[in-house]
Structures are given as C-alpha cells and as structure tokens.
C-alpha cells in the first residue's frame, strides 16, 4: 500500500508544493481540522515547557516575576554535583528499567494473547494490579519488603540502584504488556501458521514474524516505560537512600523550598539531553535500516 497521502509519481516531475493536488479521502494527514487540532494540542503541551525554559534564565532567586536575563543558574546547575549525580542515576535507572520492562511486558502480552490456561482471568487481574495500585501504597510496600528481606547493602554502582530499578520494572511492565497486547489483538495467526508451514521453528517464527509485528507496540510501550521511570517520584522516594537519589526526588526536595531557576535550568538540560539521545538513537536506527535494505 503506498504511503498514505502521497500519490504515486511514476517518474513524474519532482514533488512540489502540493496544494494543487486534491486531498484524497484517506489523506487525513493533510486535512486542515486535523492539523489544527494537533497544533492546538502541541501548543497546550508546550506552553508550560517553554515558560519553564524561559524562566531558567530569570535573574531572581524565587523565580516568580521576571527580573532580568542571566546564565548563572545554568552554571549553578551544571556545577551542582549532587544534581548531576541524581540525573545520572535517573537516566541509568530509566534505561535499565525500560529494557527489562519491554522484555517482560512483551512476554506477558504474548502469553495472554496466545494461550488459554486455568486461572487466566486472575492472572490478567494480577497483571492489572500494578496499574491500579496507588503509588504511595506501592512505595510503602516496597519499602517494607526490602527492609524485611534484608536486601543487601554495600553494592557498587549501578547495583546499588537495584532496589529502585526492581520497583520501577514492577510497575512498568504491566503497562507495556497492555500496550503490546492491544497491538497483538489485530495479528492474524495465519501469518504464523504460514511461517511454520514453510519450515520455521517456533523461535524463528517468533523472531521474524511476531516481533516485527509487535514493534510499534514495543516502541510505544518502551517510551511509556521510560517516561514512567524517569519521572517517578513517590515509589523512588521510598526505595532510595543516601547514595541513590534520583532526579525527581532531588528536585522535589529542592522545589519545596525554593523554586529557583536552577531547577528550571536542570530540567531544560534534561529535556535537551533526552532529545539528543533519542534523535541519535533514531538516526542510528535509520542508518542500520538503510544498510540492511
């Protein structure tokens, strides 16, 4: 199926300003009302972010009214060792947590989609619990749990973040499972059967047929898991200790006292770094894709 909205060209003149081409019935991407609504939503989402970034240049300790332009809070933020450490911790935790969550979530989605087994409704219910549970309840549960079983201390980085990572995975993977499952619902099992008929083993079928199909779900789920982990405050607060502070926890305790532009500066940097990382990842993926084809 040709990419929606781009009529096939068949050696015609290079694509120019497309206003002259009529908008096809399925050409939703070009319809005005859709573009307007997307634009409005993006505006809604970004106005606070932009004010956040603008105010990181504010020369005022309390950061309520504009007081002049300065870069000193960026200096402070970038020199604030504990902030940087917390930042590093957050990214590490988010990355590891996302990987495991996507793995576990994908497996769980496949199981629930493919198999009938006794006790399935309860299993589904149990999988839904991490989504349902109030965060503070889970935070306390993890706190008490790790205390009771005597989780080992004294581990080098990054193992010392393991308690937090475990907690994050526990509450993220059901989200991934749900997203991937929604995607699998539309999978046509005949494709699997065809692959098997052609001699593929179970694992090959999984790898070459199912996983590519699941990919958008995996990507969406992964993004969700990353977001959940990076921004988690409550659960992390209860599972962290002196050497394992994460960015939200650190910011939370800073902000309760003084919403200085330093905090805004740190967030702005976090946003920029995450964009850069994601763009790099996408670019790498594009290159790998081009090389393969």
């Amino acid at each position, binding site marked *: 199926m040709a990419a929606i909205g781009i009529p096939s060209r068949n050696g015609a003149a290079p694509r120019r300003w497309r206003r002259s081409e009529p908008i096809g019935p399925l050409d939703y991407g070009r319809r005005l009302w859709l573009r307007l609504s997307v634009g409005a939503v993006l505006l809604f989402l970004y106005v606070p972010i932009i004010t956040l970034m603008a105010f990181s240049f504010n020369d005022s*300790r*309390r950061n309520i009214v504009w007081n002049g332009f300065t870069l000193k809070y960026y200096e402070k933020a970038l020199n604030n060792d504990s902030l940087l450490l917390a930042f590093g911790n957050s990214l590490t935790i988010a990355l590891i947590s996302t990987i495991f969550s996507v793995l576990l979530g994908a497996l769980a989605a496949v199981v629930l989609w493919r198999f009938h087994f006794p006790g399935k409704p309860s299993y589904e219910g149990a999988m839904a619990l991490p989504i349902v549970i109030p965060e503070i309840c889970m935070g306390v549960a993890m706190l008490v749990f790790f205390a009771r079983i005597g989780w080992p201390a004294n*581990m080098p980085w990054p193992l*010392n973040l393991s*308690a*937090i990572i475990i907690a994050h995975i526990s509450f993220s993977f059901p989200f991934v499972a749900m997203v991937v499952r929604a995607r699998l619902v539309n999978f046509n099992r005949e494709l699997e059967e065809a692959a098997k008929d052609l001699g593929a083993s179970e694992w090959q079928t999984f790898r070459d047929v199912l996983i590519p199909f699941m990919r958008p779900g995996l990507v969406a789920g992964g993004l969700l898991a990353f977001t959940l982990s990076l921004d988690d405050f409550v659960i992390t607060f209860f599972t962290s*200790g*002196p050497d394992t502070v994460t960015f939200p926890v650190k910011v939370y305790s800073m902000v*309760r006292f003084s919403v200085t532009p330093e905090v805004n500066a740190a967030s702005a940097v976090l946003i920029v770094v995450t964009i850069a990382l994601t763009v790099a990842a996408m670019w790498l993926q594009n290159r790998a894709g081009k090389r393969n084809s």
Partner: protein
Amino acid sequence: MTIHLGRRFGRRSFLAGSGAVAAGLAFGPRFAHAAEEKRLNFYNWDTYIGESTLDDFNGATGIEVKMDLYADNDELFAKLKEGNPGYDVIVPTNDFVERMIEAKMLEEIDHSKIPNKVNLDPNFQDTNFDPGRKHSMPYMWGTIGIGYRKSRVDSVPDSWKWLYDSDRYAGKIALLADGSTCIQMGLKYMGHSLNATDPALIAKVEEMIIRQKPHIKTFAEDNGQDLLLSGEVDLTMEWNGDILQVMAEDDDIGYAVPQEGGLLWQDCLCIPKGAPHPENAHAFINYILDAEAGAAIADFIQYATANQAAKDLLPPEYSENPAIFPPDSVTAKCEASLYLGTDHVRMMDEAWTRILAA
C-alpha cells in the same frame, strides 16, 4: 495472633534495616573496633545550611559530608520508621524529636563530645520535649505567623481573625496545607492553647474553618510565600523564614505574629539510631555549634539561631530583626506544639479530612 511489625534492633537487623531501603551504602557495616570512615551522611531540609559550612567542616576535620534533602518531617519519619537507611545526622522539628524519642529512634548524644554547647542561648540549653538535651541539640527556631502585602491591607494584620473569621480579604487568603497547624492556630485564635485535646473545642474550630472556606483561596503546600510574591494572595499563614526570603525580593511584604500568639518551632540536630558514623556525627554537631560556623549559617539562611555566641557575632540587621527574633512580648504568647499521642493525631487528621471534604 499478634505480630509486631515494629523496628527491631541488634546488629543483624541494623544491617537488614539500613541496607534494605538504601541498597546504596558505600560504607561497610560498623565494627566496634575499627576507626570510622571519614564520611558523614547528613539528612537535612533544603538550603538549611550555610553556603560553605560543609566544605569548611571538611577542611577542618577531613570528613566528607554528603547532604541529602527531605521536604517535611513526615517524610523524614516515614523513611526512618522501618530502619535507618544510613543517615548520621538529621534535623527534625521539636514535635518530631518528641515522637522519635518515644519511638526510640534516636541515639543519645554524648555531651562530653559537644564542648561548644556552652555557646547556646541559655533558654535552649534544656527543653521540655527533650529533658536534659539527651537526644538533640537546638539548631534554629522561629515562628509561624502572617505574611502580608503592605499596600493591600488596611493595617498590620496582627490577628488570626483576618485568616479565620473575616471576609474582609475574601479570595486573597491562604493557609498552610498542614491540617494540624491550621487547627492549632484556630485554637489560638479562640483563646485556647494550641495543644488542647478537647474534641468539642476541635469541633468548634473545624466548624469555623469550614465557614471560612469560601473565602480561602487555597491551602498552600509550602509555597505561601510564592503566592504572596506573585500577588495571588495578600495574606498567608507561613513560617517566618519563608516570608523573610520573599521580603528580600519585595519591599511591599511584611510579617507579623498575631496577638493571640503563633506557633513556636525549633529544629534540632539529632543522631538517628543505627547511624554508621556516630563519632563524626558528634564532631559535626559540635562544629555547627561553634560561634563562627554558626554565625555563617545564620547569616546565610536568615533564621533565628539558638547559638548565642553566633548571634553575638552578627550585625543588628540580623539580631534585631523583629521578623527573625520577635520581641519577648510576642513570643510570650506563642507556644510550641507537643506530640499528644496517636489518638490525638488521628482526631486531628479526621477533622482535617472533614474540613477539606466539606
């Protein structure tokens, strides 16, 4: 069957308790005969220490201090309840010092290691919530009162009436989001002690606040001073230090302790049980009580210090600032909050839930 899920002590559970929650201690378990590592884990409120205090301490003793932050006493208590995750010095407020003493969460302070305690203001050498100062050393103290915008009030609002019982400033008032504090100030307004436990009195305060609710803009979660600064409200119940910070940015803001009396709070330095570096902790506390170090801290954070020697070193702009050091006539009416038992806490919480739900 009764299972007690309280905290247990002993070296094994110290390891379990401390390692468990943190999973991140970079120092080993404490052997009685080994020298302490030159580290200190300090758990404190944000910006509640001098600008260079930690570095100066490091320079003087070679001990590296790592400071972590918490935002309110409840968080501190909840974190430490299941075992100390590895902190050496904490800074709870007086009523939480009481709770922690009762719950046996604090180490005893060896006064022989704190020679600088002679620097303390005589009024703070001993106290009723920690007789003999066995578990705490005073750090800073202050009041809760009313921050206001001078140009928008008829006269200095020196009564709780403007926040609790009047629609003069309707829609431009903020109270603290802390339920028990709000109820306590209501009790003060009605002329009772803020430590009253009579349910009938508390019910009356509850009614009063519910009546006043339509005029209250919001219950500010620690940012009342920001609301004042941005003009969202004109009067707010806040800690004096917070208002002082915004007074530095805006001359139109003032602070007053109501005539009926406000809350008198005191933050103390304590050593939680199971602290990995108690020797260093004592040294640190002693250092803070030093005159010069204490003066540097007080000058930076602009709260009232309990350290008389430090206060003497500071200029009158600080030591005679009525917002920092209210005159005796005012403090006479103020009271400190006491911990009055679990039933009382529960009663206050339910009253507050009803107030918010009304």
